[in-house]
């Protein structure tokens, strides 16, 4: 069985990155049925439509870099290398889940690929990432911290406090906004008076960038530059990825508040289609090859679901493990 780190290394090729984006889409699309069949409790927050952002981030990081991420974290977890069994196992509350089934959908983690337990409180991951970056600076490593959050978090105090401190301390930290236009059920224009959230970095004299988050190549280019800047000791960046979530905020949200036609317009700029078209055009994969790839991934995800559903619930004593030292 391949480790999370093995799976992370697969992102070093264009085909590996496309493969991962398709895998994320298929995992996210399997979740509604798992929920309807009673295998998932509580809530889930899907990231289908945002695959290029997470795969692009993971592609440029070392395994010793650390990521803090929100409860919309399935895609980031898969991108960083956690297996579909690890992610779906956690979402279904099984022992084989990446947190042993005690966390659930909102609390995915794998320290071997630098994913801290994902944060279920809006904005909570930013100050922690600040500390991760501070530790890298104090320990004099060239590791970086990346914190991934939504447009909604940009109105939380922790966002402003963290940007300011990262800037004055010149920390190796990349703030990544997944601007999917909605904070929970509210469209961004109703909660935020500016369109480009990257502009907020100007107040903190921080390097910033607005990126087409549906284009994997654009994400990689921007992240590569920001990571190089941070590793060289030049300080933080704020990168705004313009993207879109195809699903509602959470399991209980049918997203009826979206203006008509908005989803259709974004689906026409689907990140998987854009990435596949580029590889086909460059002759890296044929159209048939891509279809075969999709069928192979579909089988992989089906097998992962079978494995998860056949697997055991956590042992009772896991309630008490790791509560304190």
């Amino acid at each position, binding site marked *: 069985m391949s480790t999370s780190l093995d799976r992370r290394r697969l992102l070093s090729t264009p085909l590996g990155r496309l493969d991962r984006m398709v895998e994320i889409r298929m995992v996210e699309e399997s979740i509604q049925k798992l929920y309807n069949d009673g295998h*998932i*409790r*509580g*809530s889930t927050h899907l990231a289908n439509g945002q695959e290029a952002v997470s795969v692009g981030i993971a592609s440029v990081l070392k395994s010793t870099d650390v990521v803090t991420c929100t409860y919309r974290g399935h895609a980031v977890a898969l991108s960083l290398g956690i297996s579909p069994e690890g992610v779906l196992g956690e979402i279904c*509350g*099984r022992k084989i889940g990446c947190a042993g*089934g*005690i*966390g*659930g*959908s*909102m*609390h995915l983690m794998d320290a071997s690929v630098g994913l801290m337990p994902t*944060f*279920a*409180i*809006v*904005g*909570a991951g930013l100050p922690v990432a600040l500390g991760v970056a501070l530790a890298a600076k104090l320990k004099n490593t060239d590791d970086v911290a990346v914190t991934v959050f939504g447009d*909604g*978090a940009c*109105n*939380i*105090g*922790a966002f402003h406090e963290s940007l300011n401190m990262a800037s004055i301390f010149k920390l190796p930290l990349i703030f990544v906004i997944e601007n999917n236009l909605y*904070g*929970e*059920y*509210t469209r961004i224009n*109703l*909660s*935020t008076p500016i369109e480009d959230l990257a502009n907020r970095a100007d107040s903190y004299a921080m390097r910033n960038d607005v990126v087409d988050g549906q284009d994997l190549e654009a994400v990689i280019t921007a992240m590569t530059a920001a990571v190089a800047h941070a590793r060289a000791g030049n300080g933080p960046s704020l990168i705004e990825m313009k993207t879109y979530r195809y699903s509602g905020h*959470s399991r*209980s*949200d049918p997203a009826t*508040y979206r203006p008509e036609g908005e989803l259709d317009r974004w689906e026409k700029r689907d990140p998987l289609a854009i990435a596949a078209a580029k590889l086909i055009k460059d002759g890296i994969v044929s159209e048939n090859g891509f279809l075969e790839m999709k069928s192979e991934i579909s089988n992989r995800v089906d097998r992962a679901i079978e494995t998860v559903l056949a697997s055991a*619930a*956590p042992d*009772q004593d*896991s*309630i*008490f493990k790791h*509560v304190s030292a």
Partner: protein
Amino acid sequence: MTVMRTRQAVIAALSDELESDPSVFLMGEDIGSGGPFKATEGLIERYGANRVIDTPISEMAFLGAGVGAAAMGMRPVVEMMFIEFIGVALDQLTTQGAFFRYLSRGSYQVPLTIRAAAGAGLGFGCQHSQLLDQWFRGNAGIAVVVPSTPQSMYGLLRSAIRSNDPVVVLEHKALYGERGDVVTGETGIIPIGRAKVLQEGTDVTIVSIGRSVLTASAAAKGQDSWSAEIIDLQTLIPWDMNAVVDSVAKTGRLVVVEEGSFSGGWGSEICAKVVSELWGKMSAPPLRITSPDAPIPYAQNLEDRYLPSVEYIDSQIQELISTGKCPSPWWEGGNK
């Protein structure tokens, strides 16, 4: 009397207060769309966006704005979508709003209501499942109510809004879908600080709150080996000492059923007070039935085990009565 779900009782209470008092307004994240539990559904259509105010995800700002507006004579009802979200804003309530009356020598008062979905049992994981009543303890000036039925949701929420001090309403998320009879209007209002005796009994007084009242009642139902007097506290701060002490004086035994962890739970407060009052007059030491000192786990089998169950409550009470001693909790080798 109308049959309604608990979430509809929230809507009814908010609506009746919005209707009767122009200084009442609502504020919070996505309350216009009704929120994840549909507990404010339809109110923006009826009362408009000036009185049902959707906010950015900025809890510190909108909770603090609630304090400020309340000090200016408004009656804000601020919603925290999940009670954990108040963490980033707690200063505004516990250190600012709670002390406004005191520091201003009564010049300002803070008639602020904070409503929040709280509680475990639905698989929301450890950051969205806590009751967190303990966050509001030890800061004099704040009241905390925890409804257990559609009626107490309606009645306590209306009292909270009418209170001239900050009141936190912890709305158990597992109860939003439960149905029950509700008397609306003035007669349906339940005063803060008063407990309700749900059933009379002779062997033991069970004190509980919120969803745990239902679990404790289920354990006592059809029970032939012990007879319980069940008290729904309804208000946790300030709690109804007379009702509890009078009952334990009669039954001689006290059992507190709590959803939260053992250490620092509200039941300690109740037990300490009752023992102080009835020292030497009880036939068994007070027993707390709680969850263990661990975060709330996600997986169904773990969360079911974690929370006090009907069977567990029954076996703990049986042992208390038969031995006259407190049984160990399940995680220390006691009854399963």
